[in-house]
């Protein structure tokens, strides 16, 4: 695993990374609490423990770049600048929700922020991200598409097709495998022919293997920057495997009992938010500054919870809107 960081981000960037991670952590903790209070119906997939991956890219991307993520997409959507209220509102099925309740937790999308969707079928968004990159290339817009996915996703056909396709057309796309060691409940090693599910397959697409510490925001940031620059230069795709861990279960109230306690404990010691806080302190940033960021973030979460909770359910007639571009849903005359 590569640990070197191609230089350390500057202090503003580091504070930004910390802030993004705090927001992600706080939002997700709250989503979990609301779920336990039965305020979030259906399902929700948290990325607690994986915040550094999204934060590193969030800080490095241009505002008009594209992100494509999965059902476990709260972090990735938030770091693009989407409001906490609209995310929590969507989870709670309220009118203030990002999709007014029509999509739900697994489909967070905010086109105005370049958050081009959260996809709930494994692998599907990889070729779709290639398509956005193809469009950027054709339009010569300088945009890059970043596509996040899990370790389990590396065993589905769409992964293979998307990577080959992106490389032959030299598309400006960055594929980021968040290897959190498990598919839903099954350890990735039990179902994968290679040790590092993404990095060990990079050569099958003529790409360099990149295996990095996904819990280290600085590492994520520098690799994100490099990959985005490469794409913008016209040098094509990058495939990154970021090693990380989800603190909780796969979804909803899954207690994650299939994982050995020691494993969970070991990874919790590598908590990206806590370790980064410690690093910032060691780098001379004052405790008071960090506390201030924490309190601002907490307050944002509280306010968003309040606003979303007070938002009414969506009006029922929106169920029949926006299937088609004309705003309607009719299939006959």
């Amino acid at each position: 695993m590569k640990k070197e960081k191609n230089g350390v981000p500057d202090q503003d960037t580091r504070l930004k990374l910390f802030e993004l991670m705090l927001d992600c952590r706080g939002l997700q903790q709250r989503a979990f609490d609301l779920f336990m209070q039965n305020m979030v119906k259906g399902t929700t997939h948290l990325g607690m423990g994986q915040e550094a991956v999204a934060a590193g890219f969030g800080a490095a991307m241009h505002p008009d770049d594209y992100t494509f993520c999965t059902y476990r997409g709260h972090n990735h959507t938030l770091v693009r600048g989407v409001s906490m209220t609209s995310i929590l509102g969507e989870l709670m099925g309220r009118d203030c929700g990002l999709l007014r309740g029509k999509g739900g937790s697994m489909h967070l999308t905010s086109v105005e922020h370049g958050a081009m969707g959260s996809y709930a079928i494994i692998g599907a968004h990889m070729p779709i991200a290639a398509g956005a990159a193809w469009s950027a290339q054709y339009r010569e817009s300088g945009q890059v598409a970043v596509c996040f996915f899990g370790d389990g996703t590396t065993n589905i056909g769409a992964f293979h097709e998307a990577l080959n396709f992106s490389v032959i057309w030299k598309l400006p796309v960055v594929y980021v495998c968040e290897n959190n060691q498990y598919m839903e409940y099954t350890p990735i090693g039990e179902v994968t022919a290679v040790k590092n599910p993404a990095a060990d397959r990079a050569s099958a697409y003529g790409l360099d293997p990149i295996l990095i510490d996904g819990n280290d925001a600085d590492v994520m940031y520098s690799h994100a920057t490099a990959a985005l620059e490469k794409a913008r230069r016209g040098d094509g795709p990058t495939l990154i495997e970021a090693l990380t861990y989800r603190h909780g279960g796969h979804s909803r109230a899954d207690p994650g009992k299939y994982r050995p306690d020691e494993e969970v404990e070991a990874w919790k010691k590598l908590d990206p938010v806590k370790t980064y806080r410690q690093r910032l302190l060691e780098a001379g940033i004052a405790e008071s500054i960090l506390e201030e960021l924490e309190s601002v973030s907490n307050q944002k979460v509280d306010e968003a919870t309040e606003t979303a909770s007070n938002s009414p359910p969506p009006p029922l007639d929106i169920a029949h809107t926006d299937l088609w571009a004309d705003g309607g849903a009719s299939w006959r005359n």
Partner: protein
Amino acid sequence: MAKLSYREAVSAAIAQEMRRDSSVIFIGEDVAAAGGVFKTTEGLQEEFGPIRVRDTPISEQAILGATMGAAMTGLRPVAEIMFSDFFAVCWDIVANQIAKTRYMTNGQCTFPLVIRAANGGGVRFGAQHSQSVENWAMAIPGLKVVAPSCASDVKGLLAAAIRDPDPVLFFEQKSLYGRKDEVPDGEHVVPLGQAKVLREGDDVTIVALAAMVPKAQKAADVLQVEHGISASVIDLRSLVPLDTTTVFESVSSTGRMVTVEENPRLCGWGAELSSLVAEELFWDLEGPIVRVTTPHIPLPSADCLEDAVLPSPGKIVASVVELVD
């Protein structure tokens, strides 16, 4: 008779068949060590070991391809596709390979396999995890299609599906997993292709499937009590083979049919049944054939929106009242 949940009936059926036939094997994502994301297969790996009950990668084409290859070489595999929506990533194996190969080879190969999948909405999972896709399967020649509405049928029909020499797509309605019913003790097998008349009435025949069955029963109660309308209720249970005999008998006598489908409007089994009745039973009809379906939209996620669009007892009642009055 013991009370089992719809969920428990799944593992009961698989266990029953695995005990009697060592060629029955079972695979899927997270189904073995963890017992399945819907906990439908808990205990199977403990009882039958990690060779017969096995976790797979997230590779639906490989899962079903392997299932097909195993079936054509002497085994009776059962595979799980976690959500029926995911048939879309492996539809080629289902629709082009499994369904057609027996016919194309003029009967050289046989495919005694079962593919189970959690189907349908009502659990706020959003448009990609809530579809009712039994009509996708019904449209493909060469597939048998079963969708039970209660635990007893889950056990009996799943056992029959495993014994059946043809490929069966077995749709478990995820909104019913918690529902408990009496299930006969001991070996329990219910033949495929027989609809069940749950209630006999004079004025209208309501035909339903899976999660729509309890809603139709509820509606029939209301119709009787509040509107004095006497409805037959038929649980179709299987779409292929389709028990037109039972349905036609009832519709001939009531003169009216209402179908209740969870799938979106266009090209559902209700359309097929309606067209059969309109062609073969036309002169017995006393009024239009009415279909109650989800509108032709993806399912929204928020609870209030999902409830507003799925067929409900209230909508069934309203449709029947309009038809009969």
